[in-house]
């Protein structure tokens, strides 16, 4: 599975990740939690092979992430990233062209569920619709690992429900999922593990069920305890 070993990432004047070692288990749903600037996005982008570590390693099935791991790891950025000249249909065609695990039928199903049509232009979508499109394109893949960076960011309640339905329905297969979010309460209902990042360091990895049963704490309570 996916493992970061002493992962450090420095930018010109900032340390985004500092010696982060995390090992993901297969079939688990991880909540990646931390305040802004804690390193969640950098960790995910490194796992997706978009960002090169300064030191340390990010391994997928024992090998450094790269071209091969991109076939099995689906990453969804929090920012819109589709080419502005595309239509919703073009996005599906693009994913179909590049990802063997992409299902056009599943993509169309998700589009219907999210009230999107293939002739819609990407540049004309509202932020909520753009977020739905990212989810549809990403979740139409049959990837082994899904990395979803703030999928609910800036989305209204109804759109959130659609997005979470799409995410949950994609979990029928045994996949590993990492979801970063500020909305701790919303993620708590389906996350099985939680990773807490603060100032670029992994502070704690815990089992959500254990947290409730043994410590009698909710994920939100634990989050406040760690971050405050």
């Amino acid at each position, binding site marked *: 599975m996916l493992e970061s070993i002493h992962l450090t990432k420095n930018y010109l004047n900032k340390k985004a990740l500092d010696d982060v070692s995390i090992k993901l288990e297969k079939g688990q749903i991880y909540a990646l939690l931390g305040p802004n600037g804690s390193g969640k996005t950098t960790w995910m982008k490194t796992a997706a092979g*978009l960002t090169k570590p300064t030191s340390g390693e990010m391994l997928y099935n024992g090998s450094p992430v790269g071209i091969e791991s991109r076939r099995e790891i689906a990453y969804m950025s929090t920012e819109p990233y589709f080419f502005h*000249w595309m239509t919703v249909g073009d996005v599906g065609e693009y994913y179909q062209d590049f*990802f063997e695990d992409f299902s056009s039928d599943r993509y169309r199903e998700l589009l219907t569920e999210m009230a999107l049509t293939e002739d819609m232009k990407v540049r004309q979508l509202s932020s909520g619709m753009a977020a739905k499109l990212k989810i549809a394109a990403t979740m139409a893949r049959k990837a082994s690992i899904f990395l979803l960076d703030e999928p609910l960011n800036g989305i209204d309640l109804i759109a959130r429900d659609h997005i979470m339905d799409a995410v949950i329905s994609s979990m029928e297969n045994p996949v590993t999922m990492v979801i970063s979010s500020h909305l701790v309460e919303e993620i708590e209902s389906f996350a099985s593990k939680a990773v807490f990042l603060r100032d670029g360091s992994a502070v704690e990895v815990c089992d959500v069920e254990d947290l409730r049963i043994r410590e009698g704490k909710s994920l939100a309570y634990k989050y406040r305890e760690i971050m405050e």
Partner: protein
Amino acid sequence: MKHLLKYEFRKTRTVKTAVLISTCIFEILFLLGLICNVPVLLGTGTMGLSFCATLGMLILGLVSIAVLYRELNSPQSYMLFLTPNSSYKIIGAKVLENGITLAVGGICFTVLAGIDLFLWGVQASDFPTVMHLLSDMMGNIQLNPADIARILLVLFSGWLSVLTIAFFAVVVQASLLNGRRFGGLFSFLLFLAIVVGIGIFISNLPLGQGFLGSFLQSMVVPVSTGFLYSLLYLGFTALFYALTGWIMDKKLSV
């Protein structure tokens, strides 16, 4: 690679369409001027076609550079680097797309120029006289198919090497500056520095006098030397393509 190439062509489709439409408009003006014998239309058409052939190809190249710059300095880069393609393939598709555009554009404009010149001659005189006139013209300026091929090859390889150097400069700034301010200026200065450096290198070869000088000179030197220039430019293209791919692979974080 074919899918990457498909989307590279798609990215510059609007500009290509604009160049094509402009060419068609000026061609129609040229033909109208020719048929109706209106010198103003003929002149406008000729001038416009010349601009389309030169500026059009230049603009297409510049747009490709701008597209790469935008992609590397925005989340659109994820569309490239999330796919299971190597950096060499990604940048290779861009170089190839420019090469194909340049080659097809160059051939089309050369053929169009030949046809227009021929029609102009036919309209001005009868066919045998035109052929004789063209033959005389060719003889006077000593232009033969080998010369035309050499000039086109030098233009093609020279411009492709310039574009590849520009891609290299853009990738270096993206790797070092990560989309910070003045990235464009940095790219441009780096590009200039490399071109000047290559110019100094070439000026020390027995082939010519600096990059631009040698580029111009390569079109008037004997055929064999012209082909040597082309090989040199293609060598620079290959070198900077490999360097760009390596930097993208090892250093670029998007």
